[in-house]
């Protein structure tokens, strides 16, 4: 069989340490081992795999439990969740608008759209808190019914992941405000955006699940 | 030296293991159910096939170890593989493994997938920490309804029998299980606290008892008992009278079976089959004494029922027993116990 010569994928060059200053993204910790941008993208996709598995496990538990549960009493989803969903969708659109600005070199547009997306993200968090408060006020507790348990659990797990997302968006926004989102920082914006879109899609899935399979 | 030791150790391993299984496999616990025979056939077939694979693989390893041991001046071959061989053994193992598996699906279908037998004897098995409760439908053949709200330990109602359901009026419950041979039985296995596992070795039957779930398993016991040991002499006349001669008592004693006050003997078929019930520690241990070819034999007709799913500290002592009765005896048993 012929030997397939694949180009080495490492950005490392044989014959000397790679030129990178400590503290730069990609300093790889203590070694000055520079990772190419694509490694960070890869790492993010790898991270998304277990997150997907986590929610797949939760969703299948939901479906199984819904299927067998004679005790299942559907909880009325708070209306604010609809608003939340739209907020999240719009935040994704805004992120894309921001990234377009970044690609085209319009720093102002980038900053504005990115801040808008971050604000929508924060709004979503507020909306979730409101939804929980409304549920709680209506006497729906974690253990009051299995549908409520799942509702709290799914939203809480998603919100936990979203908190990290909002943190990432806020960090990029901060960098942008300090006018440091030059091309090298595109990576950070891209990673944050991919993660955010993923969570957005995830929320649509979860929301649909809770609506359809009540 | 090392390769020689290795070869010897592997030889010992193969001989020891094969001998261990060959000596032990024919001595699997007694078999009393119909489906169990097919399970045993499949088990023994698997034993032969895997035994051959085991011996060939281990001995092949030993052979290669010895043959290709390091010797000065010998250079290893630069053999990198063989696509043809890879295909051959992939397909061969696939066919062997899957084929073997499919052969066992018949008995699985019989136990789990096929329609349950018509007009069986229904017995409800309720597992709880750390005992088994068996509910029998009484003369009407129907079990009364049950619900958790009726559970009342003070009245011994652990299964939650509905007192208002007329079907349940003649139900009775016991701590051991009695089944007739030759008649299909369906057990309804359930639990009221944690997981338990219903298992009787001799019946080749095992099923977890899951709270919130009820699993029906059909089986037919096809033997009235399994031979324990021959007894000496011919005391048919004494036995018909319900008396156990001292000589036989001694023989039982020598086999760790004790005839005590509560023991009883009755003729099922006078002159030929007698039911011997020993009661050494307050559980009935029914045996059969049969006159066969001019000799008396003692048959055991009770089997231990074990819990096979970890259920807490008392797991190891969650024991009950299955008594095999003749259809006539079973009818009497129902008659006697129905309220």
């Amino acid at each position, binding site marked *: *069989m012929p030997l*397939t010569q694949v180009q080495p*994928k*490492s950005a*490392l060059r*044989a014959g000397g*340490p790679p*030129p990178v*200053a400590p503290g730069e993204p990609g300093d*790889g*910790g*203590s070694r000055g*081992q520079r*990772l190419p941008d694509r*490694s960070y993208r890869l*790492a993010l996709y790898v991270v998304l*795999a277990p997150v997907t*598995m986590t929610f797949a*496990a939760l969703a299948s*538990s939901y479906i199984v439990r819904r299927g067998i549960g004679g005790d299942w009493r559907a909880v009325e989803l708070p209306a604010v969740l609809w608003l939340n969903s739209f907020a999240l969708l719009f935040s994704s659109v805004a992120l894309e608008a921001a990234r377009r600005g970044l690609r085209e070199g319009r720093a102002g547009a980038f900053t504005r759209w990115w801040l808008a997306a971050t604000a929508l993200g924060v709004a979503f968090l507020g909306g979730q808190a409101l939804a929980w408060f409304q549920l709680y006020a209506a006497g729906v507790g*974690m*253990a009051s019914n*299995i549908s409520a348990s799942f509702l709290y659990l799914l939203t809480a797990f998603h919100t936990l992941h979203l908190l990290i997302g909002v943190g990432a968006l806020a960090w990029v926004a901060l960098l942008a405000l300090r006018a440091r989102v030059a091309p090298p920082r595109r990576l950070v914006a891209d990673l944050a955006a991919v993660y955010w879109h993923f969570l957005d899609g995830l929320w649509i899935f979860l929301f649909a699940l809770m609506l359809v399979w009540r | 030296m090392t*390769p020689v030791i290795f070869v010897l*150790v592997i030889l010992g*391993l193969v001989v020891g293991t094969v001998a*261990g*299984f060959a000596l*032990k496999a024919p001595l699997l616990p007694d078999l009393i159910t119909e489906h169990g025979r*097919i*399970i045993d056939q*499949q*088990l023994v077939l*698997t034993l032969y096939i895997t035994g051959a694979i*085991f011996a060939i693989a281990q001995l*092949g*390893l030993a052979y290669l170890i010895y043959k*290709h041991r390091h010797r000065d001046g010998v*250079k*290893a071959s630069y053999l990198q*593989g063989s696509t043809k061989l890879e295909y051959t053994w992939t397909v061969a*193992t696939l066919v062997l493994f899957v084929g*073997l*598996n499919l052969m066992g*699906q018949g008995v*699985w279908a019989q136990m*789990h*997938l096929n329609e349950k037998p018509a007009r069986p004897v229904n017995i409800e098995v309720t597992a709880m920490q750390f005992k088994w409760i068996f509910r029998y439908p009484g003369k009407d053949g129907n079990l009364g309804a049950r619900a958790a709200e009726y559970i009342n330990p003070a009245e011994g109602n652990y299964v*939650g029998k509905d007192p208002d359901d007329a079907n349940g009026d003649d139900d009775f419950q016991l701590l051991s299980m009695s089944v007739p041979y030759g008649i299909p039985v369906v057990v309804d296995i359930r639990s009221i*606290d944690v*997981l338990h596992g219903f*298992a009787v*070795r001799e019946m080749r039957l095992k099923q977890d008892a899951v709270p919130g*779930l009820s699993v029906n398993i059909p089986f037919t016991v096809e033997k009235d008992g399994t031979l324990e040991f021959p007894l000496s002499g011919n005391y048919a006349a004494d036995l018909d009278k319900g008396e156990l001669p001292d000589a036989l008592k001694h023989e039982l004693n020598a086999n*760790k079976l004790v005839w005590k006050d509560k023991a009883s003997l009755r003729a099922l078929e006078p002159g030929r089959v007698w039911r011997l019930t020993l009661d050494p520690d307050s559980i009935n241990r029914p045996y059969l004494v049969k006159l066969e070819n001019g000799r008396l034999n003692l048959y055991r007709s009770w089997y*231990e029922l074990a819990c096979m*799913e970890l259920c*807490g*500290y008392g797991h190891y*002592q969650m024991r009950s027993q299955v008594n095999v009765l003749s259809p006539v005896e079973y009818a009497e048993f129902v008659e006697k116990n129905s309220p």
Partner: protein
Amino acid sequence: MSSEAAAEHAVHVHQAPTNPIWRYVFSTDHKVIGIQYWILALVSAFVGMGLSVWFRLHLLNQGHVAQLTDQLSLLVEGSADYNAIKAKIDALQTAWYHMEPSQYLGILTMHGTILVFMVLTTAPMGGFGNYFLPIQVGALDMAFPRLNMLSFWLTFLSFVTLMAAFFVPGGSPNAGWTGYPPLSAVPDSQGNGYQGPGGWGQDLWVLSIAIFCFASLVGAINFIVTTLDLRTKGMTLMRMPLTCWAWFVTAILALLSFAVLLVAGLLLLLDRNLGTSFYVPGDLFVSNKLLVDHKGGSPLLFQHLFWFFGHPEVYIAIVPGMGLASHLLSSFARKPVFGYRAMVYAIFGIGVLGFFVWGHHMFQSGMSPYVAVAFSVMTMVVGVPSAIKTFNWLGTIWGGNIRFQSPMLYALGFVSLFVTGGIGGIFLGQNAVDIYFHDTYFVVGHFHMIMGVAAIFGMFAGTVYWFPKVTGKMMNEPLSQAHFWCTFLGVNVIFIVMHLMGLEGHPRRYSGFAFEFLSSDYMVRMHTIVTHTAIFTASAQVLFLINLVYSLAAGKKAGDNPWESTSLEWATTSPPPFENFKDGVLPEVHHGPYEYSVPDAAKDYIMQHDPPEARPATAPAPH
């Protein structure tokens, strides 16, 4: 950046931290982390083994008690014989290793949990993988060293949490390492007869596993990115040693399976503490009262989630051993691996198929019997890649020139144990035959053989093989060999006898002999053999410890490549410098990983980084 700055920078970044805390404790160096993982696994292994010796002693004791009690029933109460036997029983029941039933289950649970998580999952991956993956693919470190450090310290935290379960009120959890609810989810059901209501032990157990899941996920991310992105020039995927392939696939398995275990554990924790009903059905009658706060949960849901993780976990434990066995068989038989590509495909086959067979742990659980058929057939299919690997191992030593040094002994032992253990799987994977064997000692013997000792032989092999690289000193060969023979003999006796006990239908997890068929002479004799051999085998592990300490202190100095192997870790010094390769100059790879006995070559072996000319043009093309 100017070349001047680069040079200055190179000097700056390539120095190990001088503060010992950063250098040896909170180190981001993959080598130090690898050693930390290895030590954690070693400590855990001895704790876990100690527990097993303890409960083996207890079981043997109980066997004698049962037999004496049988004798007692034949004697007249109060007679001299009766009193003598009674005194003997009392003495046995108060022996120091006697356990209460609930305590027995607690020790059993901890034994399983410690060994599965803290040994079988950490050592092959976190230990050897961390140390050698970056070196074997030619990288300076893992892709994300700080995450790597985080991963270890989370694992350590998980270990501490688990150990704490020994000491909390209520003692260690007693629901088995599989922790099936409702037993694990309803505190009242956990044996208040002996230790008060089920205490915090079970909670700590879940917590520990949750932390462990998180640590494993973080670690797996590092392994995958490092393998895909940090290979040195010339190190194509198909030039990676099989060890690297094994770690890569293991990382993928861990990535996808631990997330599900995390969910399973979380739901269990909620059921246990907040009264939710994911797993706990309604109307349970526990401790003489009806539980009213649960409704309609499904105990089977937990089992599905648990085994979705649990089956891949078996492969997480054994696949690195498979990779290492392939590596060593080739190296010590001085022959290329037979069917390198087939080996890679087989590892992937196992990895992929391993996700579709979890139901074979649940044939008798009350799961849909139709689904059981599908799982059973899939289980047989997953046996095929394992068989392929075995054939290829035999093919690898066929025509070789085998050097019987201790790493090779362990590798050959691994193959033998793998065959023996794997064959038990052909019984258990058939749903019909499993009716008889489910939850018997046959299962215990089977999984100890394959996922326990086979995997541990992989660790022994790795330890003796790489010890010279890590420490610069050889391990003592006679001691290693003595340890190998004792252990190999011991484990075979212990676990094959357990298979035989399973053939008799001996249930697992029994702390006593309340059944007639268990207290038979035959069974007690079998228990005696197992316990005595277990004590012998456990004592033999002291040889291994002595060897470690002695070799560390006074071992023969090892050269850079004492085994004349070809992979990149042998291209650097022993021990490797902080930057793995001299001055951080990464070697360039020109050859496949198993170029032994290449015809017409000057040497017996061609190292991966040897210049292209090292391989004569006349030699046949590599795979």
